[in-house]
């Protein structure tokens, strides 16, 4: 008997060990860490004569994800001690910001914890985290994804959104935190996957539909705030050969909020995109209309707080310093936008293409306001009056009020084995009054150009030179301004920028740069913004140290922006992943 017992225990242990070994073999752990720190110094030259008690700002996070077969889980820890300048002060704090656990066997997927997801293009639902903006609107709750048949995906989710460090418990509702609960469903049908006859067809089609509703709490003393606000969207994607067409329309019922000044009008959004691509050539035409589509889970929310949805920008994303100074920020209360992008590669071996080919790109985008007509309210014709419908708007009417226009042309060419050049010209129109809130400030009308030249010294070393210029048509040195409005001209006028970067692959990079506002109409603002940067890369670890000045500006990702104040000091960034 004892013998049998010993054999049984031995077998059980062996089996457990084998299963534990298999479990460990299937386990995968990955993660990333980043710390950004800024040390600020007084710099009267650029108007910083008071640090307002903040000598240093540190933003940091670490996230670890674990995967084992169909199961995955993760946590993210954040620390803002205190937050760096330009980030919302509500971020100050430290703690576990995010966690989740998911099981997905292909047929059903379930997640609990903090959820990031998107329905369609995001018109009615998108939760995401963008470190550079200090933005995180994760939904803490649960999600179910079902794939009942090939090509069909059904999703359902609910939860409450992250609001900096505010607790999630309902009993914590107060005047400053009236976050609602977000519930949503989404269905998508990919016909090419579902219908065998279409599996290999040149014709491609998929359909989708979403419905999202927020359950919020009416804390208003004066207005009846709808406690359930629903938004629905439908989308269609078509393709044939080299052609693609996609469109999405969204509708939201009355949603009075601080953003729309408590009007009760419905919201609408439409986007359509037509594209063609073949080897060496691609073109995309996009149009968009947005009317009263701010959708937040707290009706008193401001700026980008608690956005349930996302309105995709259809503008060119500039990455160089001066072209990205005036980046368009999406206007959820109303905009009509259009964009055309054409890319063409002149083939290798032709007169213009040379040995390596030449890439050409043209882009034009423009955004205007929508047309708003007044409505009758209590016997008076009003526009955007709180408590009223707000206005009516003809769907296809475009206002003469232009917010933004960007026309740019780029050449990208490898001249020889060692030389590579990129050059771009941009013609910009930027209504700084609407986009950045500088009341009364004249529109920025500018010509911008840059040259990005790389020379490969040898297999390991290279030099890169950037030369950029921004020339305003009207506001520059000599422009007459009123003394009292001087503050509005802090970054206006003509700019020059130069950067020289020396890289020793795979580890080191050194650069020096100067951004000079030489043509500012205000003499005392004609400042140099010098920076010197050293960065070291070792596998997935990057350490970057820079010192110098940072000019006032905006940082935008996907049409969502934050303002960055001018500063001077030292910045250290350390990041790694595994």
């Amino acid at each position, binding site marked *: 008997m004892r013998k049998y017992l010993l054999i049984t225990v031995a077998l059980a242990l062996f089996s457990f060990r084998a299963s534990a070994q298999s479990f460990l073999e299937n386990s995968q752990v990955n993660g990333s860490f980043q710390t950004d720190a800024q040390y600020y110094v007084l710099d009267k030259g650029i108007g910083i004569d008071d640090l307002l008690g903040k000598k240093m700002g540190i933003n940091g996070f670490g996230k670890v994800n674990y995967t084992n077969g169909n199961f995955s889980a993760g946590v993210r820890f954040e620390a803002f001690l205190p937050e760096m300048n330009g980030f919302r002060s509500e971020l100050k704090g430290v703690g576990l910001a995010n966690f989740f656990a998911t099981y997905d066997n292909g047929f059903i997927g379930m997640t609990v914890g903090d959820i990031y997801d998107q329905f369609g293009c995001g018109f009615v639902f998108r939760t995401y985290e963008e470190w550079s903006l200090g933005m995180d609107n994760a939904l803490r709750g649960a999600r179910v994804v*079902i794939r*009942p*048949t090939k090509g069909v995906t*059904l999703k*359902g989710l609910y939860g409450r959104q992250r609001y900096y460090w505010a607790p999630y418990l309902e009993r914590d509702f107060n*005047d400053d935190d009236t976050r609602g609960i977000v*519930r*949503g*469903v989404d*269905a998508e049908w990919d016909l090419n996957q579902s219908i065998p006859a279409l599996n290999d067809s040149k014709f491609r089609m998929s359909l989708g539909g979403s*419905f*999202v*509703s927020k*359950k919020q709490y009416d804390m*208003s*003393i*004066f*207005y*009846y*705030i*709808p*406690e*359930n*606000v*629903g938004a*629905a969207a439908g989308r269609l994607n078509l393709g044939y050969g080299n052609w693609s067409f996609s469109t999405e329309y969204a509708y939201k*019922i*009355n949603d*009075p909020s*601080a953003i729309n*000044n*408590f009007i*009760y009008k419905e919201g609408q959004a439409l986007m359509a995109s037509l594209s063609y691509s073949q080897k060496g050539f691609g073109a995309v035409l996009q149009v968009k209309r947005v009317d009263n589509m701010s959708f937040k889970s707290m009706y*008193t929310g*401001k700026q980008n707080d608690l956005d349930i949805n996302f309105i995709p920008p259809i503008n060119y994303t500039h990455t160089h310093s001066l072209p990205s100074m005036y980046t368009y920020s999406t206007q959820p209360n109303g905009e009509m936008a259009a964009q055309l992008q054409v890319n063409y590669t002149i083939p290798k071996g032709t007169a213009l293409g040379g040995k390596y080919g030449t890439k050409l790109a043209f882009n034009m985008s423009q955004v205007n*306001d929508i047309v708003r007509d007044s409505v009758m309210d209590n016997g008076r014709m009003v526009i*955007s*009056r*709180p*408590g*009223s*419908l707000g206005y009516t708007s003809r769907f296809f009417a475009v*206002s003469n*009020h232009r917010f933004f226009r960007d026309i740019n042309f780029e050449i990208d060419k490898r001249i020889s084995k060692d030389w590579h050049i990129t050059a771009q010209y941009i013609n910009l129109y930027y209504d700084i*009054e*609407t986009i950045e*809130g500088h*009341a*009364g400030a004249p529109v920025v009308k500018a010509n911008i150009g840059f040259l990005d030249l790389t020379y490969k010294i040898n297999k390991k070393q290279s030099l890169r030179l950037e030369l950029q210029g921004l020339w305003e048509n009207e506001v520059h040195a000599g422009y007459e301004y*009123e003394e*009292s*409005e001087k*503050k509005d001209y802090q970054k206006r006028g003509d700019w020059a920028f130069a950067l020289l970067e020396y890289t020793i692959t795979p580890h080191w990079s050194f650069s020096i740069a100067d951004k000079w506002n030489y043509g500012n109409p205000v003499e005392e603002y004609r400042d140099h913004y010098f920076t010197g940067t050293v960065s070291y890369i070792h596998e997935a670890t990057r350490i970057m140290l820079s010192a110098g000045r940072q000019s006032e500006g905006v940082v935008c990702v996907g049409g969502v922006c934050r303002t960055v104040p001018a500063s001077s000091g030292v910045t250290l960034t350390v990041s790694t992943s595994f």
Partner: protein
Amino acid sequence: MKRLSLIFATAALMLFAMGCDKIDINNTHKPFEPVAGQKAVLIKDFTGARCVNCPAAAETAHELQHLLGEDRIFILSVHAGFLAQPIGNFPDFLTEEGTIWYNNHDSNPLFSVDHVDLTEGYTLNVEQIDAPVAAALNEVQLFDITTTTTYDEASRRLNVENNFYPTGDGDGKYYATVCLVEDSIVGWQTIPGGVDREYVFRNVFRGTLNGADGQLVSNGPYYMEDVFTTTSSIEIDSTYNADHCYVLTYIYNYESGKIMHTVMEKIK
């Protein structure tokens, strides 16, 4: 499979059915009834002719006034701050007292409701204004005020006598500020999308008759039968339309800054 799809479709339909509340556009305002006394509330609207968001904010304040009664809510449009600086054709409504009250804030529009929390950020955003207004209306009125004005057309001299009647016995240091207000001035105002050249400025603060802090009414114990009187005088600027001018008087606790009552009278 079909069952699952059916369950999903049912859940989606339920969410659709329950997920929308349509508010009757003719009934968007809640009834509001102040419960105590007849205390009037003063909203100081710190605004600027070049402030693009100020007209909507002013509209919100007037909306509150419209809802709650023009005898219970008074609005004083104080042009102060960077966006109130007169540039080009934008009007100059700056005042010395308004600049003192604005206290180096850096944005418009901003509101104060009965000088709530004067020591730290006494201004409120437009979205936050309704609750403090409602709370202030429900406070007990400590003083009643009567204002008598005499205006001489020829000299444009305005004399004001205010009588303050305690509604009960009490103690404290109380000051009163007497303000000159001009209504319905037409001028340039920045609005979303451009400039309204014929914007009608309401309740524009033109200065005080007795300084930014006003003058002493009572210092120490006071009794219900007491009457305190203050007098003040000013020569109305020749560019002001006397037909549209008012005197606005408020009494406040000197220690806390909190306004106890406000009245407004036409000067003629």
